[in-house]
């Protein structure tokens, strides 16, 4: 599961435009309620938090429960007034934080 997050957003936009951002991180999202073949509970291990920032300012975030499907997908929007960098982060139950960045040119 060491796969990279997948992102889809425009590389360019007009000033003041509201753009659509699609994100996905490969992750099994173990709920903690499933038993393995020997009847032992598989411990909970999910992505519990997602954040999106633009030039250091919060745009969107989510607190995620085990009811979110495997490979958690989040689609949201952002209003862009200047060129800059989106930074996305995903926090795993084990404390691991995966990040990804994407530039956008605003004119």
């Amino acid at each position: 599961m060491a796969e990279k997050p997948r992102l889809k957003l425009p590389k360019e936009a007009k000033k003041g435009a509201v753009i659509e951002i699609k994100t996905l991180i490969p992750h099994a999202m173990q709920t903690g309620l499933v038993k393995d073949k020997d009847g032992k509970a598989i411990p909970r291990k999910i992505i519990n938090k997602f954040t999106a920032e633009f030039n250091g300012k919060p745009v969107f975030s989510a607190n995620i429960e085990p009811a979110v499907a495997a490979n958690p997908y989040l689609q949201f929007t952002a209003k862009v007034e200047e060129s800059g960098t989106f930074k996305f982060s995903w926090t795993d139950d084990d404390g691991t934080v995966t990040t990804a960045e994407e530039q956008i040119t605003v004119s």
Partner: protein
Amino acid sequence: MFRSAMLFTAAVVAAAGVFVRLGGSVAHAQTKAPLEWGEDAAVRPWKRYQGWPVRGESKFSTLAKLVSPPPAKEPRKLGAPLAGNAENGAMLVADRNRGGSCLACHVVGPAGGADLPGNVGPDLSEIGSASREDEYLFNYIFDARVYNPETVMPPWGAHGTFNDQEIADMVAFLQTLKTPAVFKTELDDPEKRPAPVERRENLDPIENPGMWAIDKAQDLFTQKMASGSSCSSCHADAQAAFKTWAAGMPKWEPRLNKVLGVEEFVTRHARTTTGADWPMETDNNRVMSVYLHFLANGTPIAIDTSSTEAKAAIERGKELASRKIGELNFACTDCHGKSADHWIRGQWLGPPKGQYDHFPTWRTSLQAIWDIRQRFQWCQVNIRADELPPDAKEYGDLEIYLASQSDGQKLSVPGIRH
């Protein structure tokens, strides 16, 4: 045994002028790719996938053997009037642990809360007003073939899914049904439920995790395997080499005397070229199959039916598709033919055309890539028949028949399905 088989393979192929080893690299003619054919292409003895139902169904026919008991010729005469418990019958007709329940195919009045019943068979909500004798209804459930040899209804009693008392209970319940079913929502009514429409973009990796196989396969393609060579040693430009190849699969393979699909081809070709161990139904085999199909996306399926052997395989596949198998006594064509464009419970049954162009496919319910052979196996286990190993020749025949039914449809792999 394995070593000698490999040597034998290489010797025969080389003698036939099909390929020559030159300083460690393999050059071969266009007509015949090197294949290993001394071994099975999947694990033996075949072991059912973890998590699948574990029951064995050796009493019933499979695609490889005909052993189901023959249908009765006459209805059973019941000596005494039936003494059924209608309340228990109401529970049994909706019991999903017994082959899916009556609601899979019939609207049965209030049974099961009239929650998403199917419409393969007639609505039974007023059967109690139809003046049917108990004995008739008993026999219809026990083994409907005594009244209709062409029926798709499982022989619930003759195949032992329900015992006589349970069938009597169901008859007692059916006799109480005298008013049309009341549905909680319009969606519950199979006559009004809209057929599903597929809107997902199956080639978008953010929509279809099956697409992630492409990256993995591209890595595998250039990795040096046991022999020191990789796929790319011979196929430097994969996109050009495989632009249409998968659309011509499966095909009759005289060296193995059976039909080979992409997955078995990959196993056998890799063994004798790069030395990679990629048996069928293992992850590397699946991702390579997805990749090879993906490279041919957009190409219309065009099966080579020119040889008499290929024609014969398609004919055998057609026969297998209509063979009744398993405890539920279903043939492929019962669901994907006679009952196509109907509901089994909440699942829509599509026609045979269109069941092949998207395999291997991502299955959202299982979060896994399945090739066509695994799909065959799953259908069989669910209709309570024993599955065959994925490299069984019967599956080859069935696959080439199915592919020929989809002739002209353009490949779009990996698909994304339930």
